[in-house]
């Protein structure tokens, strides 16, 4: 059976094939990987940076760094998770940069609001609530927000989040507890309003 037919029959096996082809220098295969993953990478970046323009830059940097580092990627790992790790690195590096533009983030559009959020699937309640929750998450302190986004939204374990953020696992747990409490408080106030 050809590699492509094998990929089709197993539905998900295409990713390692594309990764391997990209490692061999196939830009088209890498574009395919970009198209499949850009939504997840950008969503993470925009939640961490709270600034769509900065998130776009971070997304671009993430894929460029990924291309350069493809040779070190373990094919057995999940490519999306690997991209998220790079994206977190890019965002953290940018925050540490003296030319960081995140200071203007408070005035930026709320992640998850607008048409994109309205069209997103949301089974708990209405799209309005998605925007409210995203707003509340965006208002959390940076450290707590990072942990909440990675653990609460994307489901990474404490160990994984600690590895991505370069903090101790205990710190990660404490930050998550704090973030949840803060978020509940903010949502409480909104519900009571």
């Amino acid at each position, binding site marked *: 059976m050809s590699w492509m*037919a094998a990929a089709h029959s197993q539905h998900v096996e295409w990713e390692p094939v594309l990764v391997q*082809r990209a490692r061999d220098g196939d830009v088209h295969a890498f574009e395919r990987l970009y198209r499949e993953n850009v939504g997840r990478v950008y*969503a993470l970046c*925009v939640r961490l940076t709270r600034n769509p323009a900065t998130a776009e830059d971070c997304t671009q940097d993430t894929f460029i760094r990924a291309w350069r580092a493809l040779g070190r990627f373990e094919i057995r790992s999940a490519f999306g998770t690997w991209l998220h790790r790079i994206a977190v690195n890019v965002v953290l590096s940018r925050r540490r940069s003296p030319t960081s533009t995140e200071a203007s983030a408070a005035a930026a559009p709320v992640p998850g609001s607008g048409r*994109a959020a309205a069209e997103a699937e949301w089974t708990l309640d209405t799209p309005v609530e998605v925007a409210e929750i995203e707003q509340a998450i965006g208002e959390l302190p940076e450290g707590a927000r990072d942990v909440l986004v990675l653990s609460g939204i994307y489901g990474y374990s404490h160990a994984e989040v600690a590895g991505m953020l370069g903090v101790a696992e205990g710190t990660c747990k404490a930050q998550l507890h704090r973030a949840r409490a803060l978020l509940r408080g903010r949502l409480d106030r909104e519900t009571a309003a």
Partner: protein
Amino acid sequence: MSEHRPEAPKDLPHRRVRSLRELPQERMPERDLWPQIEARVTERLQARAPRQAQTPPAERLQAAPAATVGPSALAPHPGPRPRRLPWSGWRLQLAAAVGLLAIGGALTLGVWMTHGSAARGPLPRELLAIDEMRPQLGPLDGRQREALLRSLNARLEALPAPSRQKVLADLDVIQRSMRDIQAALGRDPGNALLRAMLQESYQDEQQLIATVQEAGKWTSEAGTGDGSI
């Protein structure tokens, strides 16, 4: 806010915090970021190209199969490397495009595909033309190939016009690629790279046909209609 949820339960904030994973995990940027990424990636490839041009011809030929589409591209490699040989860059691009067609275009077609009658008919002229290349492609299972082509012909008959056109357009790209490679082989019959490219383009054509055959079954099993793999 109370206008949207007049009967909001008291535990709503807790419920929302517990349900963070229901938030959308994907969001598309307002603009397509790929062109700039591609420019940076290609820039790196081109920066490496002069170094490759100094590589001895024998080594370049050894590297050739990985530069084309097909299973040989799956050989382990430490990282991205430039693949544009100075004398045939556009052909390599064409061959790579064929691979993309195989992955993306053919599957999109599969989603549109309906199960049609298996009426027999004459083989498509374009496919027969490709079949004439067999002597240069090495030993092949003639009966298997003929069955594939006849089955594809039946599929094409049953397809809606846009899908049929897409299949034929994809085949046309593959066949033009093969003709270009053949023409180059005419000028340089001993070129191992060109022979490998021709062989792999032929395999791509077979894979496209096989994909069209399998697409109906695959689509119904997957239960998705978005055309993605």
